[in-house]
């Protein structure tokens, strides 16, 4: 058990926090805007009010991409 492992992207890195923690609180803690990311907990997409338990694997996946040269 122990902790909530959070995978962050761009660049790829991992942080560990203690649970349980609400998704919205976790994002505030890490400094993300809710609408700029998806949060995937143990492989499942979750809403902001979901609670993340100790021992969970979390991915905070950014959704904003920016190429300037697409047609």
């Amino acid at each position, binding site marked *: 058990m122990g902790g909530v492992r959070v995978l962050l*992207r761009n660049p790829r890195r991992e942080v560990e926090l203690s649970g349980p923690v609400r998704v919205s609180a976790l994002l505030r803690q890490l400094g993300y805007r809710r609408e700029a990311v998806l949060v995937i907990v143990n492989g499942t997409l979750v809403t902001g009010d979901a609670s993340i338990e100790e021992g969970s694997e979390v991915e905070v996946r950014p959704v904003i*991409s920016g190429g300037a*040269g697409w047609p």
Partner: protein
Amino acid sequence: MKCRACRAGAVIELPRHNSALCRDCFLAYCRNQVSRAIDEHEMLRPADRVLVAVSGGKDSLALWDLLLDLGYHVDGLYIGLGISGYSEPSAGYARAFAQSRQARLVEVDLKGHYGFDVRSGAAADHRVPCSACGLSKRHIFDRAALEGGYDAVATGHNLDDEAAVLLGNVLRWDLEYMARQRPVLPATDGFPKKVKPLVRLAERETAAYCVLRGIDYQVDECPMAAGNRHLGYKEALGLIEERSPGTKAAFYAQFLERAAGPVAAAAGTNASTSLHPCPSCGAPTTSQLCAFCRLVERAGGDPKKRIPVSAG
């Protein structure tokens, strides 16, 4: 949180619709938004053969998947840009998707085919990488669609992309660009029809669609994108949207409804009169050689190469 439609557990909030949806209702919502966009703007007819511009990212793979599910005949075209650490995995996602849906993926490798990659081409032609990249992609998709006999090229531009481009155009009052910023560009002499069926879906929604459909895509950002202006506009719109959900969609929708027509008239888009076929590749151009063939020549490649696409 409960699904607003069926009361099952929600997986995603949609603040601009003041709603939250479960997996199944959300996937249905995405299909519905795409078919509404297609109908509303008369993008495609049921029997059309469509070429999707596939990058391996969330938007293009979601688009391909959605169009297949809506029953269209859709092939994908992937262009290898030769951006190390980024292009190889991107191609892998495109191939894996094509295989899983038994769909046809055509690949063109800039280096193998034309003798340059985005970085070297940009340097040789004194452009920034995104400009060389965009020019190459536009050119290759256009030629491939025409030579392959496709009825339309579909690109994965989503609501956030279009709103950000619109904001940039408005900040410069660039009427010419605004006049061309439509979800459908009809086929004209030498150019295929171009459609953007994802304009009713936000970026976060296309990403969620892929996650919920189990579609693996390139999450990492192209290394050339960092810090570009387009991302700044997205950030600014994101802040406004957070305070007043729905603003972004209204900004874009109201542009199409109320401003696009007058803007096009004011911009007086009659440049097509002076177009002639490029002697090297046949693409319409206003200059001697078209911009793409110039880029290829400067980069030391062979612009006369045909694109390996045939009606399948």
